[in-house]
């Protein structure tokens, strides 16, 4: 197991690559979802305001 994480001495290059990949994929998934929810919230608030 430890051997796997050492990556034959290249751990300092291999793991940051994978970590950055995970971060980039997560951001491009998370940010649009947040933006989408914000739009929906805005829409609901506006609808409420119109009812009054």
């Amino acid at each position, binding site marked *: 197991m430890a051997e*796997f994480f050492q*990556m*034959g*001495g*290249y751990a300092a*290059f*291999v793991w*940051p*690559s*994978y970590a*950055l*990949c995970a971060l*980039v*994929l997560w*951001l*491009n*998934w998370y940010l*649009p*979802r947040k*933006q*989408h929810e914000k*739009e*929906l919230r*805005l*829409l609901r608030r506006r*609808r409420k305001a119109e009812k009054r």
Partner: protein
Amino acid sequence: MFLWFHKLGSPPHFYRIAGKWIPWLSGIFLALLVAGLYGGLILAPTDYQQGESYRIIFVHVPAAWMSLFVYVVMAFCGVVIIVWRMKLAEVVLISSAPIGASFTFLALVTGSLWGKPMWGTYWVWDARLTSELILLFLYLGVIGLHNAIEDKRVAARAVAILALVGVVNIPIIHYSVEWWHSLHQGASLSKFDKPSMPPSMYVPILLMALAFQFYYALALFHKCRAELLRRERNSKWVEEL
């Protein structure tokens, strides 16, 4: 066929379809990702020259491929925008830009993390690396130009032209390792030649590449849905949501 295309091009229809597809795309992406990572990090043997450092390839090559693919999608949208002024193409183009920029950035950084132990340097001004860096600037240019123009319909046309002009860079990136002497190694996989590596190495690359394709569709759909709502805030279909 034309009718189907026309229907898909309507914002409310696309919004609904994209919402329906997202769970499926997520599932397929995760399955391919797990298979690709398992194949790449656990099953694939150590490279006889590069040792374990070559395992960066399983994120580097798919990211680099996607950086080109997303740009071609954007250029295609550019044609559709200029010729037919299709709204959905505008949304797809601008929603693709940050995703493409991310893949390009990822390809550049993972490449330089691979270059350090193998070439002895993080960066060289070589044809492949420089043209890929220009691709990043093109993506950033598209995003910046779009943000700079207030009227989004006008912005879309400007961005469409930039995307089209920039597409000349794509074959340059692709052939750079053949046209110029480059420190970068040649193509890992090509359609015509026998692969330069055993299946235990290239199958995980293909799995990861496929995973990234599904990821692109997934991220694009999320982004398009948000973008559509923002643009069509005042239209009837959004009111009825």
